């Protein structure tokens, strides 16, 4: 089987080369038949790479330890789901997985070629070029079907224990779908630039593809955070690790694009900016992959150091040079149709939003690479950890929250300060009253610590955003309810259906503020560590932990030991929790299984950290993490909001919108749209 796997990979490469070359010739010679063969070759790439991926998974399920990758990432006792997850658990397999996802995106793109045959033909050629790069990697630099030299061992080394969790079965595919998904908008954007695509259709197509990639990336980031929280056992969900940062970089630029693209659609502005945002998002996705696989920066999540780094450097350089070449050659095509007229306008709010997102992306990139730069300049390596990233990014995030609150209140082109004041006054008063109430009730004391101050600001700004978004929904809902003689909730439902993008976007913003409220809870975090023998007690916040017993178990894949802890609150037992420690036999590594009791107010998070080597008494570490539940709730809002924004608008009888669901605001009329027609 490994030989067949190797052959399918080579076949995939050959087909990709054909799809690229034939597609290119077809464009140059304007040959439709040749173009069709290139398209079909692109579809066949999917079949070849699917077969290769299937064969690797088959090898994992059949314990074929003659394949080095399976030997190093699986073992006989590994449960089936993790054998499947072994596909993306190592360097070679994850690159193959990348190829496969790219082939899936390529398949969808090529099957939907009728959306614009010529544009798709260009995009397909670019996508084939990217596919060739990744297939070269898996064929020649990180071969997943490499065979073991010498005698084949009877059992494998097993999967890293930290990866043996249900979240790890879904987190990497989501993240990869996000990373790889950014290739498609890149292909469309570059194609539109190369062919000087007339009109704005390409930007509608690109925006939708970007939203799909962004959605997966967002889910991947949140699932990664959830995995870190539930599995790593340090009580946090984001450690500003280089690998985490790598996923944040394209997310930030992608978010910036999803906002500024509205200026291009509505006003024909920011074309150069948007083009480069898409290019940057793709380049950063590749750069992130390079960071995690080259060993340039050290990370707890990184793959084993390998020699594939230079391949990525060449690919990045070539991609950047290609983008720059076509930009310089065709930049006249990207001239803005209108100029920004006022600082108090929807356009300027998007502009400042973009600036903040890009400064944040720069700060993250800068902090991630600074250790390398410092070593290069001074000869000494330094650590750039959470304190740096928090200090730099929290103020930016607060500014962004403020813009999120103000943005919906601004009209396109210009808004009078009087109008802004009128719309902003009530939400601002609500936010200030809420903040004062929190201080008066003693929940937040911003004068005690800087983190409390930031928390208070976050909560107040979140309330401000919620109030402005709420007023948008209620105002629009009331207008429709009045006309339809229905209630305001039905009105809001119809409002959302009629402008899914705008109101879906607002729901995403609601998700962001719910998540931010969760982040604000960090300031009130408590922890405690104690040796707990039978009957011993430990207090943390309002909880008392009483150790009832310890017990052990043995399974084919691991042996384990549990603590059985009764949890009391206000003198009453509320639950029993079981923090666990495992010892994985194949890899010989220990791991902890966190016991977590999550409520809307706080998480009681217990870790069985081990035994005191001096007296053998078990040690329990307890964390009280306020508001964590809100982070995951916010993620759900973001997911739902993005899906709503992707759904086409419900057409009203009165007016039909332009393709893409949005009508460009004409230059010669006041551009604030009627409530029911929306506009972003």
């Amino acid at each position, binding site marked *: 089987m490994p030989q067949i796997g190797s052959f399918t990979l080579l076949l995939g490469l050959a087909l990709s080369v054909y799809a690229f070359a034939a597609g290119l010739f077809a464009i140059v010679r304007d040959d439709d038949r040749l173009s069709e063969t290139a398209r079909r070759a692109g579809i066949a790439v999917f079949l070849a790479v699917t077969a290769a991926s299937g064969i690797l998974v088959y090898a994992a399920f059949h314990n074929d330890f003659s394949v080095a990758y399976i030997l190093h990432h699986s073992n006989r006792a590994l449960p089936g789901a993790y054998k499947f997850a072994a596909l993306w658990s190592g360097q070679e397999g994850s690159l193959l997985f990348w190829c496969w996802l790219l082939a899936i995106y390529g398949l969808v793109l090529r099957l939907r070629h009728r959306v614009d045959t010529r544009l798709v033909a260009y995009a397909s050629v670019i996508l084939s070029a990217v596919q060739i790069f990744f297939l070269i990697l898996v064929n020649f630099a990180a071969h997943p079907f490499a065979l073991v030299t010498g005698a084949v061992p009877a059992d494998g080394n097993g999967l890293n224990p930290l990866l043996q969790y249900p979240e790890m079965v879904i987190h990497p595919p989501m993240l990869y779908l996000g990373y790889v998904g950014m290739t498609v908008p890149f292909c469309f954007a570059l194609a539109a630039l190369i062919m000087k695509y007339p009109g704005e259709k390409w930007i509608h197509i690109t925006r939708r593809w970007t939203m799909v990639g962004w959605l997966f990336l967002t889910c991947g980031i949140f699932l990664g955070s959830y995995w870190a929280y539930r599995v*790593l*056992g340090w009580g946090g969900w984001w*450690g500003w*690790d280089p690998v985490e940062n790598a996923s944040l970089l394209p997310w930030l630029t992608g978010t910036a694009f999803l906002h500024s693209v509205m200026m291009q659609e509505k006003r024909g502005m920011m074309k150069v900016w948007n083009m480069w945002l898409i290019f940057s998002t793709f380049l950063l996705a590749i750069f992130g992959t390079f960071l995690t696989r080259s060993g340039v920066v*050290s990370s*707890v999540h990184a793959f084993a150091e390998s020699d594939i780094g230079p391949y990525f450097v060449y690919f990045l350089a070539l991609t950047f040079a290609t983008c720059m070449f076509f930009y310089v050659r065709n930049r006249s095509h990207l001239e803005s149709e209108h*100029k*920004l*007229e006022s*600082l108090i306008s929807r356009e300027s709010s998007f*502009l400042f939003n973009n*600036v903040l997102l890009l*400064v944040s992306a*720069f*700060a993250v990139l800068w902090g991630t690479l600074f250790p390398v730069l*410092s070593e290069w300049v*001074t000869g*000494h*390596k*330094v*650590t*750039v*950890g*959470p*304190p*740096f990233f928090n200090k*730099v990014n929290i103020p*930016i995030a607060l500014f962004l929250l403020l813009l999120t609150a103000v943005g919906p209140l601004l*009209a396109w*082109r*210009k*808004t*009078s300060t*009087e*109008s802004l004041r009128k719309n902003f006054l009530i939400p601002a008063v609500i936010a200030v009253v809420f903040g004062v109430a929190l201080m008066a009730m003693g929940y937040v004391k*911003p*004068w*005690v*610590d*800087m983190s409390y*101050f930031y928390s208070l600001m976050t909560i107040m700004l979140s309330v401000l955003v919620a109030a402005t978004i709420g007023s948008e929904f209620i105002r629009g809902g009331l*207008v429709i309810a009045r*006309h*339809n003689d229905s209630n305001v909730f039905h009105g809001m439902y119809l409002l959302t259906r009629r402008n899914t993008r705008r109101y879906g976007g607002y729901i995403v913003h609601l998700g962001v503020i719910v998540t931010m409220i969760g982040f604000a809870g960090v300031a009130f975090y408590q*922890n405690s560590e104690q040796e707990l023998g039978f009957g011993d007690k430990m207090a943390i916040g309002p909880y008392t932990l009483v150790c009832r017993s310890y017990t052990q178990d043995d399974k084919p894949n691991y042996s384990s030991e549990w603590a059985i802890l009764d949890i009391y609150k206000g003198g009453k037992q509320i639950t029993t929790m079981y923090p666990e420690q495992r010892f994985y036999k194949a890899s010989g590594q220990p*791991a*902890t299984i966190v016991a977590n009791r999550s409520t809307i107010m706080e998480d009681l998070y217990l*870790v069985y*950290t*081990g035994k005191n*080597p001096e007296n053998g008494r078990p040690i329990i570490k307890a964390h009280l993490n306020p508001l964590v539940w809100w982070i995951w709730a916010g993620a759900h809002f973001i997911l739902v909001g993005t899906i709503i924004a992707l759904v086409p608008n419900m057409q009203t009888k*009165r007016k039909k919108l332009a393709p893409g669901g949005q009508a460009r605001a004409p*230059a*010669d*009329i*006041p551009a*604030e749209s*009627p*409530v*029911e027609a929306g506009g972003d």
Partner: protein
Amino acid sequence: MKIARKMIHRWAAALLLASALLLMGAASDAGGQGQRFDRLGHNLMCQCGCGQVLLECNHVGCSTSEQMRKEMKLAMARGDSDQVILAGFVGKYGPTVLSAPTTTGFNRVAWIMPVVIFVAALGAVMLVVRAWKKRNPPSGPTNSGGQPPEELDEFRRRAREETAL
């Protein structure tokens, strides 16, 4: 009347800014011993190879983080200042034990650059917008008619009412 209102707004804004700065100033210094341990522990990296902040090392039964925490508690009990404690750790484990760059020497660049980029980007946006406004008088009947923005808001309000479903 208008001038007086403007003055009140300016004073209110100044007062708000001053309160925020005072809060921030006060916030940065305070905190008890527990918070001090937490703050210091987050300024140091565990040296066991986990690549995590000292108080967040998740290695099962990690003896290195345990030892480092003991050293920190001991130094705090001795009455050492934060600087002395951190310098002691740097002396023993090297500069990578600090979880963030210091504000001395080349490390200053780490802190300065994001601020420089932030200010430069904001400044550039303001300049570009101003330049656009000066070079291109806004087109279309919106402004060629010379209506002030307040009047436009009124038109928009009416348009909303009249075009509502």
